[in-house]
């Protein structure tokens, strides 16, 4: 019984911190969007607007709870909770540190892929139950999109599973090291392909631009959540931004070494009490840093790109990503068979991939500054007055 | 673009020669920059067909169709007719020289043949005139109100149009002044 109470308290803390993180992310996203658009973004509530999300949340609690007359009221009511649950549950097996995780599931990856489907069900349910044609279209689009993109995502995850030899997230993190050379993304070309496929598929499953057609603002008004107001909409809202954390966390765990921070996790640490607390904190912060980089990239993409049409979206999935994913998953089997770990070829490949990755990032920054220099189109007047 | 004067006579002759005088036409160079071909309203389709499809003319581009109600109250020597005046403007797609066709309709039960098979946009122009002036276009493919709600009564661009005091329960005039309270 005591254990149950502990678990309950822990779950509540977890839930609250995710909600706070998601709320905070809304402000961050609006500020980043503002910066990209030469605006400022919310800055009135609290210092630099950082408690804007509290105002939004408290306001949403006061709003009238509208359930349209012709809506299927039961499904309409539970849909947002399903969506939020789907997002929240995916975070359960993801390790934020050596000990900071809800449950060390041996079937972690399987579990995450299964739980992600809750979102589809919730979105479909919400779209259908609203009795609004735009919502229905949004729900249908969403179902088609998420089901399609689960295939390449699973194929990409398969590559990681083959490399780690386990479905357990914690063990996947252990089997990667702290330095970039040990990260799966730079181990071999197939893993790199898998990373790209997984990231794109995760964007699509999270309904983010350029794959945000289920809630395409300019086409479907607001997609599946058109009829939702107040608190129920808040759950969709939280789920959307919670999803950012999930995508970031999954990508960093599977491909970027998770919380591993400049030290080796040796077996002696597994004895309770031997693991230094500072390692845990540093690892947690390091993980958060990685997650926030991916969250930033996703936000950045959102405020830059237009969205795809539904047939183009399906084309990308079935014509390109699934074949490439299959190629990568077969390639990784051959690679694992012919190139054993710590062999010369493996080492060379690791280092060359890492330097290739580093150079790509450097080249990117070079191009950005080059473009800034060439364009010379300075903002005519400073909007930040 | 100014229509060359030589063309004008050519056009008048052309209309006469094609229809052997069955179509009454008259060319006037009004204050408009463009020549105006005055015709009888029953010949509108014949003339438009000539103007659009004849190889020497080729006025395939319909600029606009305009209609005017010439009411009794404003009658004078310049606007000597009571009824409706239709004003079609066509342009040549090559050099964009324009030509207007003008015709008049009687005041009660104004009717004219539609020209919406000559141009893709004619239907909308005709619908607008039907809506605002109440001119009926015979054999039109789709003649509905376009600007005003379907339950509207009357044709507002007619000179004798009277506005009611309410429309669907909304008063059409403002009774009271704004009572704005400034909050400090």
């Amino acid at each position, binding site marked *: 019984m005591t254990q149950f109470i502990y678990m309950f308290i822990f779950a509540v803390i977890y839930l609250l911190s995710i909600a706070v993180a998601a709320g905070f992310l809304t402000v961050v996203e609006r500020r980043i969007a503002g910066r990209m*658009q*030469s*605006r400022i973004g919310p800055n009135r509530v609290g210092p630099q607007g950082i408690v804007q999300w509290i105002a939004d949340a408290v306001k949403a609690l006061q709003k009238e709870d509208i359930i349209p007359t012709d809506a299927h009221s039961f499904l309409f009511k539970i849909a947002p909770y399903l969506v939020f649950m789907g997002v929240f549950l995916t975070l359960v097996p993801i390790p934020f540190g050596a000990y900071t995780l809800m449950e060390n599931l041996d079937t972690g990856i399987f579990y995450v892929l299964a739980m992600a489907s809750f979102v589809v069900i919730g979105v479909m349910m919400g779209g259908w139950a609203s009795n609004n*044609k735009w919502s229905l*279209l949004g729900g249908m*689009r969403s179902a088609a999109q998420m089901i399609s993109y689960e295939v390449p995502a699973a194929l990409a995850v398969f590559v990681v599973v083959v490399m780690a030899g386990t479905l357990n997230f914690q063990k996947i993190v252990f089997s990667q090291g702290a330095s970039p050379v040990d990260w799966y993304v730079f181990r071999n070309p197939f893993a790199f392909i898998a990373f790209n496929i997984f990231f794109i598929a995760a964007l699509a499953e999270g309904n983010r*631009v*350029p794959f945000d057609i289920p809630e*395409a603002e*300019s*086409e479907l*008004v607001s997609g599946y959540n058109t009829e939702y107001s107040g608190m129920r909409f808040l759950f969709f809202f939280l789920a959307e931004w919670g999803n950012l954390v999930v995508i970031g966390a999954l990508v960093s765990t599977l491909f970027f070494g998770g919380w591993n921070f400049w030290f080796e996790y040796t077996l002696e640490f597994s004895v309770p009490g031997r693991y230094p607390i500072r390692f845990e904190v540093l690892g947690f912060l390091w993980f958060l840093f990685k997650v926030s980089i991916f969250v930033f990239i996703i936000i950045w993409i959102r*405020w*830059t*790109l*237009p*969205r*795809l*049409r*539904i*047939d*183009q979206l399906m084309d990308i999935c079935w014509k390109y990503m699934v074949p490439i994913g299959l190629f990568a998953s077969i390639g990784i089997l051959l690679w694992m068979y012919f190139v054993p770990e710590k062999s010369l070829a493996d080492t060379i490949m690791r280092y060359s991939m890492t330097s290739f990755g580093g150079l790509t990032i450097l080249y990117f920054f070079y191009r950005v500054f080059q473009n800034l220099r060439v*364009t010379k*189109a300075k903002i*005519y*007047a400073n909007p930040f007055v | 673009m100014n229509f060359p004067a030589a063309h004008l006579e050519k056009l008048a002759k052309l209309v006469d020669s094609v229809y052997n005088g069955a179509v009454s036409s008259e060319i006037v160079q*009004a*204050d*408009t*920059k463009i020549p105006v071909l005055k015709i009888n309203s029953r010949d509108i389709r014949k003339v438009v067909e000539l103007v659009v499809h004849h190889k020497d003319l080729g006025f*395939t581009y*319909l*600029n*606009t169709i*305009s209609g*005017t109600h010439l009411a009794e109250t404003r009658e*004078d*020597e*310049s*606007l000597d007719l009571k009824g409706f005046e239709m*004003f079609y*403007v066509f342009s040549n*797609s090559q*050099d*964009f020289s*324009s030509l207007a066709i003008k015709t008049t309709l009687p005041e009660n039960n104004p009717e004219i043949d539609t020209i919406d098979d000559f*141009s*893709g*946009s004619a239907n*909308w122009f005709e619908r*607008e005139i039907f809506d*605002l002036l109440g001119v009926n276009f015979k054999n039109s493919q789709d003649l509905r*109100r*376009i*600007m*005003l709600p379907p339950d509207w009564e009357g044709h*507002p*661009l007619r*000179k004798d*149009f009277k506005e009611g005091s309410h429309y669907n329960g909304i008063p059409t005039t403002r009774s009271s002044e704004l009572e704005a309270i400034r909050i400090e």
Partner: protein
Amino acid sequence: MTSATREKELKPRVEITQISGTEIEVNMGPHHPSTHGVIRFILFIDGEIVVRAVPDVGYLHRSIEKIAESMPYSFFMPYTDRVDYVAAINCNLGYALAIEAMGGLEVPERATWLRMIGVELNRIMSHLVGVGALPLDLGAFTPFVHALREREHMMDLLEILTGTRMNNNYIRFGGVCQDVDDEFLKKLEKYLDHFVLFLEEYDRLIGTNKIFIERLKNVGIVSGEKALSYSFSGPNLRASGIGLDLRKVDPYCFYNDMKFDVPVGKGIKGTVGDSFDRYIVRIEEMAECEKILRQILSKIKEGPIQSKVPKKLVLPAGEAYHHTESARGELGYHIISDGKSASPYRIKIRTGSFASMTSLAEIFKGMMVADVIAYFASLDIVAPEVDR
């Protein structure tokens, strides 16, 4: 592109006759984020394919033509602003030129130059809304805000020139309402230096974006023949490959002396007359406007800005149809005067957007819902111009 793939891309995605499922009727607008004001379509869709579309306008019918009949000619000038609020001075100019032609009024040289500055500046601002709203409707919000940012600076310039940010009511019969000093001209020149750079950057931001191109190319193809039949004008007509510009073929003001090109759609990414052409033509036209503005700046001279106009203007009896090139195409005023009263007997305004709207019902057939938005946005339609 090989001819085979081209053929494939040009074919409609679904033959209408093959659709056998149930069609549902959805109502898009008059309040819809992408209908730009209050235009409504009733779409009959089968899945994502539009089987039939019925455009419905008139939600902003403000009876401008009727109001004109009850007031003196000069009082009507502010209403012409509201015919197309995005390019207000263009509408002013068309009306003023029509009245001046009917009444035989003189316009001083400097006034004409100032009018042209206002018109061309306004044309740029209008096209910025057009090319800004296009990516907005495709889901990219940022380019639109960048366009707004530049518009703010141009509005500042217009404010110096005319006194207001929008709905300027700048042009008077026989002149303009106020003069500017040389400082404004210098400011304008300095801004133009900035604007060319911005335009290039903007085009690189979205015009080279793969998704943007894929969403627009071969979408909503309007061939030149069709464009003429639907009475397209302005950039929409030119995008279909027909280089008709009233500033060239029927010059007014001093456009005769100006050196500028008329950009036409060449189908650089797909087919001539597709939505991408309509985008690129507007971008190129802004560059041409910039050229014209520079020529004006080099030629403008000091002088009076207003000629003698009778206080109570009574036009001789008669009628006139006068058209100018507005930002959205041919803007025609058909004015009838009875020769006695000081107010027009009838004013009919022919606008570019109204003509563009006539094509929707046919072009929408067989499109996907997302393409409907893209095509409609590429036409750059403003609701009051349709409804007046």
